[in-house]
């Protein structure tokens, strides 16, 4: 096991990793940018080190700054959290070159799964159905040809993108013509890589993902699925497990199939395989996330497994210590992303001081947040303020507990989306477990907010 881990991230996930390190009895150093000096992780850590200015390019995205911080503080491993450098194979490689361990898959594994297009090819060869799509698009003519082959509507996607960033929906050849160049330059600007591919757009789909863990010895488990269909512009808002869209048989089959494929493809450490499930219940593999995910707490609530600790153990070369039979998922869990976004103002990100903060409590309630009264939310990073996760023996009770917890949750001084969450909870489509990924974008959030205000 490692003696000391450098936490190269911020916000709630830095705090989550710090907690896992303490649970494991290993040291931790929180690396923070100047804008996060007052961040809770840096405040609570036994050791913290400023790695650069607020600009992420010179702090959380700076490999030299992070690795140097790990070296001078005597760390033997770096936990990248999610986002930033968490799936960057170049970073993982440099970390290893300095004699440190990257907590995540090896550079080779990250490289193999770096391109979504290549990943789909690999996993499709190992038996996962994929959405009909193209290879890398050479030019506009090629794009038009491929779109005609798979059938409109299609999604134009940057190969290097993630989290829905840079994706565009195109319904006609004419739209494709105007979109292609824009997408290409956006991809270059956003990801430094202008490779694009396209795939058939499934209307009314659900987003279901399978959580897996594979150690270096080939031991592998899955931890069931998460349904992340409540999205706004491809950004997840609410996640739950188990998925209301799948039967027990279907969920078991999908998880086993995903685990077999990813293990055969040589995956290692924690990973999430994302699928789109269409109205008929067919699951199409879309991508793999080679990191801890924002929504991991709901899996932890149902399985009782500390996934961050497990991730650290696997990276340290330990055995899983669990077989599939040991993984039992109980009850129902829902997570709500509490964001500093104003639903009434087109979800504009908010920054400013949190004057009051009170986390909810009670049976099955878990709050992962870096907020505290007086905390200044910086404007440089994403808008995630925390995650409220709720567990109950069944879904209706989970919804009831969630509503009670959202009523208790107090974040004053900054506009959040708490009320939007309550409105969604009260919506019949959500109660029926029928939300699809495009619902919020199609109807807009205004009806939800209006209904919630009544």
């Amino acid at each position, binding site marked *: 096991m490692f003696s000391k881990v450098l936490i190269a991230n911020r916000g709630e996930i830095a705090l989550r990793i710090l907690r896992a390190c303490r649970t494991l009895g290993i040291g931790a*150093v929180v690396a*923070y940018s*100047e804008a996060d*000096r*007052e961040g809770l992780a*840096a*405040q609570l*850590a*036994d*050791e*913290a*080190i*400023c*790695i*650069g*200015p607020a600009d992420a390019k010179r*702090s959380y995205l700076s490999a*030299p*700054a992070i*690795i*140097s*911080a790990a*070296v*001078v*503080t005597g760390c033997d491993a770096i936990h990248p959290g999610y986002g930033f450098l968490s799936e960057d194979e170049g970073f993982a490689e440099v970390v290893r070159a*300095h004699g440190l361990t990257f907590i995540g898959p090896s550079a080779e594994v990250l490289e193999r799964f770096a391109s979504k297009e290549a990943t789909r090819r690999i996993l499709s060869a190992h038996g996962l159905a994929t959405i009909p799509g193209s290879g890398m698009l050479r030019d506009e003519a090629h794009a038009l040809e491929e779109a005609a082959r798979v059938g409109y509507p299609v999604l134009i996607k940057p190969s290097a993108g993630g989290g829905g960033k840079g994706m565009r929906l195109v319904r006609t050849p004419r739209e494709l013509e105007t979109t292609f160049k824009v997408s290409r330059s956006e991809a270059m600007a956003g990801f430094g890589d202008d490779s694009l591919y396209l795939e058939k757009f499934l209307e009314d789909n659900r987003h279901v993902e399978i959580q897996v863990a594979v150690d270096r010895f080939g031991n592998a488990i899955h931890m069931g699925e998460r349904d992340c269909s409540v999205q706004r512009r491809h950004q997840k808002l609410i996640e739950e497990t188990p998925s209301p869209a799948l039967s027990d048989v279907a969920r078991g089959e999908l998880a086993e199939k995903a685990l077999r494929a990813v293990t055969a493809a040589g995956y290692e450490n924690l990973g999430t395989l994302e699928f789109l499930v269409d109205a008929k219940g067919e699951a199409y593999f879309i991508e793999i996330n080679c990191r801890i995910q924002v929504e991991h707490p709901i899996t932890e609530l149902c399985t009782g497994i500390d996934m961050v600790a497990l991730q650290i153990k696997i990276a340290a070369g330990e055995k899983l210590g669990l077989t599939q039979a040991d993984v039992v998922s109980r009850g129902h869990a829902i997570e709500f992303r509490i964001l500093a976004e104003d639903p009434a103002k087109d979800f504009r990100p908010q920054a400013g001081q949190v004057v009051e903060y009170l986390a909810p409590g009670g049976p099955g309630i878990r709050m992962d947040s870096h907020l505290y009264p007086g905390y200044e939310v910086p404007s440089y990073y994403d808008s995630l303020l925390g995650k409220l996760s709720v567990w109950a023996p069944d879904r209706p009770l989970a919804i009831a507990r969630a509503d009670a917890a959202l009523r208790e949750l107090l974040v004053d001084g900054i506009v959040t989306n708490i009320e939007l969450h309550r409105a969604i909870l009260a919506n019949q489509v959500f109660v029926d477990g029928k939300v699809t990924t495009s619902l919020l974008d199609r109807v807009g959030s205004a009806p939800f907010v209006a209904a919630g205000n009544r």
Partner: protein
Amino acid sequence: MPAPQGAAKPGPTDPERTLRIQRDHDAIARLADELLPALIAKLASGGLGEIEVRQGGWKARLRKPATAPDPNKAATAEAAARARAVGHGRPDERDRRARDPKEAEQGKVVAMSPAVGIYNPRRDLAVGMRVRAGDKIGTVDVLGVQQDVVSPVDGIIGSSLAEAGEAVEYGQELVRIEPPEQAPMSEVPPNEAPAGEAPAGEAPAGEAPAGEAPAGVAPAGPDAVAVAGKA
């Protein structure tokens, strides 16, 4: 066809331009001979830190040097030499240390670390050494790549806040830089001059930066920096 470059420029004998230059020279001479001595005397006698006067399209601004522990000055200097983390303790502890009023009131500027790494001062770095803004005073080794530590201001090297070979973080305070205005040491009571630091005579009057009022103009008052420019 491109127009020949420079054809439109006024020739050196442009009469209007010559006249303008002559007027400017006269104005500067008038400012230096009449206005500045009066302003320096006024600044010396009162509690004002800065004076600005406008006259005939020109303005002159005079500022007292930051020698005395003037509370306003201390606040500014504190902001400039701001509360940087030192060492690897918890940030709040470090902030407390850095906000220590005793340290802040001294009104000193510090050279800070440009990166996380191992600090090494320049070999010839010594207390009392004169530096210009941008002068290299050491390096921080970031995984074998040397990043320069530079002085943010013109001044005199003061005490070191980090040891050679010490691990430092981004923004950490490394070396105090004392303002060159402190040069006339006769103004600093002996007990305020830290032992061994910036001994008197280290900065002779001749080295005073251009623009500083000559001592003869206001012998009894504080040094004043005059800034003249067109309003």
